[in-house]
């Protein structure tokens, strides 16, 4: 069955589902808008900018949730298992994009749809079942309270198919925790509280079954392009690196390199990274695997705590971010406790980064005596107490006790706790910082301050991967300096470089692929060749770079409309401070010396007004946004 709508390489159709009326519409997708914004975080930005009223409560029925595939979100493409959820975030009140791996995007394409747009709120808990072109909205009351794995098993049994893709929330999403994730088995669209948005809509799960295919413009050319791409991938060092060690393989090096935020960002290096990684490799790691059918890297980790008080079944998880947030953030050396804590995050459906961040924040509050006796209620929140991590995950997920405040994320929690706690609530625009530190490479500082979803290392850019890690993503031909000619602690030129890097590295989020394939050598030129063969378009890397710039500016316009100004493009003071301990505590060069100069350079490169923070009208005209 061919799913091609009105243009090749896409299905050309999207679902618009109004949960108030339980109404399902199949709409055509505009070829013009698709060419301009492609898909993923680009198409989602266009829908939300055009259709979402500014100022709405993200947990109200007025929020719109878009699940957007990209043109390359198919399993034959490098990284094609990639689904992007776009929404107004209940954690940050601004733009949110949150990506999950797995097969949901390829299956949606095979079902005959490029995107799903969800409006309103159902009157009772529901599940949407997309069975090729048949769409059902089914009662899901029986799923309430189940963990993610329990829900997934129940749904597959109910629908009689073990291979159905599922996007669902856990109990944390049902409780509207602002750091709740959208889960796809053991993969997560973790950040920004998408799980709470689904919960607020009474949307418990989406199940997707697809058996069709998308017509390709030039299948012979595509086969050759993909063959050559695989040759290039296998010759790239990062392909092997991610395959053999997963992201967690970077834990020792990041600790050594000052890229390991420790003790709620008091430092960027702890010294425990190598021993914790060695323990993990020896005791917890089982094997690597790919999160979607067809992944040739397989960076995901299958892990277990075989036998201890923190025993877990074998499961997917315990990768770099999760484990760093449950070790270095909280000074915990008990790796089993960290694996257990991150396993529970997946089961309850909560963002591991925000969870680790908010627990670290709570530990510092406890250290400073900011909690009342009633609030603590006997909890032992001293630094390094690994045993408290699983307890806190459950409390935050279910909004129990102090967990009810912490479920709001560090920004709101600090507002509620007061007493100076806002000084050590580490976030930008409300999104908690992940396990990468701009004191390891200053491009990350610009990326953190200006990322459209907040303090995010990967959407769109892990800046320190360029100036410290020497990854160029094939972007030198588009103007970024050779990273081998750049020193990680230099500042001049980093603002300009980050603008170009963001435009180029955002592409994975727009075309619907896993970004690690970009790390492993897939460049805008590779993607353009694939798209030429897929769609028949005359498209090149330069046009893709322009698309990246267009999308990031549209997301910025969304944010400006929601009230973002230059005062929000700032870093927490602690991140600009010499580390309090560790390898770099006597290294003054590691901190950003002139943040204002970096931002001025960035704004100029972006064509944004330095007073309002908005893209100037000439930039918007250049990008076809007005």
């Amino acid at each position: 069955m061919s799913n091609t709508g009105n243009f090749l390489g896409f299905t050309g159709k999207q679902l618009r589902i109004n949960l108030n009326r339980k109404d399902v519409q199949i709409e055509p997708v505009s070829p013009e808008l698709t060419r301009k914004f492609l898909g993923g975080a680009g198409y989602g930005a266009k829908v939300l900018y055009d259709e979402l009223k500014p100022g709405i409560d993200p947990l109200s029925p007025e929020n719109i949730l878009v699940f957007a595939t990209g043109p390359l979100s198919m399993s034959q493409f490098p990284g094609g298992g990639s689904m992007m959820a776009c929404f107004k975030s209940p954690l940050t009140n601004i733009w949110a994009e949150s990506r999950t791996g797995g097969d949901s995007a390829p299956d949606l394409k095979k079902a005959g749809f490029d995107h799903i747009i969800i409006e309103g709120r159902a009157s009772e808990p529901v599940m949407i079942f997309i069975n090729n072109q048949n769409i059902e909205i089914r009662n899901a009351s029986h799923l309430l309270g189940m963990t993610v794995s329990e829900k997934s098993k129940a749904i597959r049994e109910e629908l009689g198919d073990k291979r159905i893709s599922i996007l669902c929330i856990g109990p944390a999403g049902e409780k509207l925790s602002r750091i709740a994730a959208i889960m796809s088995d053991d993969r997560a669209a973790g950040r920004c509280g998408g799980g709470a948005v689904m919960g607020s809509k009474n949307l418990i799960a989406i199940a997707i079954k697809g058996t069709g295919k998308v017509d390709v413009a030039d299948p012979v050319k595509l086969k050759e392009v993909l063959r050559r791409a695989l040759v290039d991938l296998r010759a790239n060092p990062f392909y092997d690196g991610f395959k053999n060690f997963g992201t967690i393989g970077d834990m020792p090096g990041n600790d050594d390199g000052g890229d390991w935020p420790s003790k709620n960002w008091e430092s960027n290096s702890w010294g425990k990274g190598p021993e914790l990684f060695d323990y993990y490799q020896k005791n917890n790691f089982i094997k690597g695997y790919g999160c979607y059918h067809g992944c040739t890297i397989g960076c995901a980790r299958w892990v277990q705590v075989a036998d201890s008080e923190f025993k877990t079944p074998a499961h997917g998880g315990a990768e770099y971010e999760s484990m760093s947030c449950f070790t270095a953030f909280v000074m915990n050396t008990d790796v089993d406790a960290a694996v257990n804590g991150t396993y529970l995050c997946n089961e309850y459906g909560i963002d591991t980064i925000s969870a680790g961040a908010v627990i670290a924040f709570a530990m510092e509050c406890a250290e400073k005596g900011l909690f009342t006796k009633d609030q603590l209620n006997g909890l032992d929140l001293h630094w390094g107490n690994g045993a408290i991590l699983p307890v806190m995950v459950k409390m935050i997920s279910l909004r129990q006790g102090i967990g009810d405040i912490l479920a709001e994320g560090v920004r709101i929690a600090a507002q509620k706790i007061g007493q100076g706690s806002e000084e050590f609530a580490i976030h930008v625009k409300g999104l908690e910082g992940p396990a990468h530190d701009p004191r390891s490479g200053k491009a990350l500082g610009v990326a953190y301050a200006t990322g459209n979803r907040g303090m995010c290392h990967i959407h769109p850019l892990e800046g320190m991967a360029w100036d410290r890690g020497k990854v160029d993503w094939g972007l030198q031909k588009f103007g970024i300096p050779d990273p081998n000619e750049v020193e990680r602690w230099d500042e001049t030129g980093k603002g300009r470089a980050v603008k170009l890097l963001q435009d180029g590295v955002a592409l994975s989020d727009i075309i619907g692929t896993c970004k690690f394939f970009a790390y492993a050598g897939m460049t805008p030129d590779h993607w353009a060749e694939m798209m030429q063969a897929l769609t028949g378009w005359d498209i090149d890397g330069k046009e893709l770079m322009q698309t990246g710039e267009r999308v990031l500016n549209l997301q910025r316009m969304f944010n400006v409309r929601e009230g973002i100004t230059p005062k929000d493009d700032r870093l927490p003071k602690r991140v600009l401070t010499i580390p309090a301990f560790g390898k770099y505590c006597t290294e003054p060069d590691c901190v950003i010396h002139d943040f204002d100069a970096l931002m001025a350079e960035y704004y100029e490169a972006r064509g944004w007004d330095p007073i309002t923070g908005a893209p100037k009208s000439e930039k918007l005209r250049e990008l076809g946004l007005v």
Partner: protein
Amino acid sequence: MKIHLKSIGDLREYFGREPQEIELPENAVMGDLFPVIEERWGAVLPAYLWDRDKQRFRGAVALLVEKRVIHDLKTPLKDGMEIQLLKAIAGG
């Protein structure tokens, strides 16, 4: 023959910022680098990067020639060749 060992990024802290010249026999192969690395840098390389007993890199350190990974340690070396060392995970 002489080859040049150029380390990239963080590895420069241990191998030096400039390419390092290494003398090897005429028919040397890629794997012949490792005893030299042990002899010259084994004492300064952190344990998470280098296994002194096995004389091999631990973790994701790649050997590259002209930016492409060399997987086969029996790959012949040529006089004047530049071999790059890179820590092959960044980010995540």
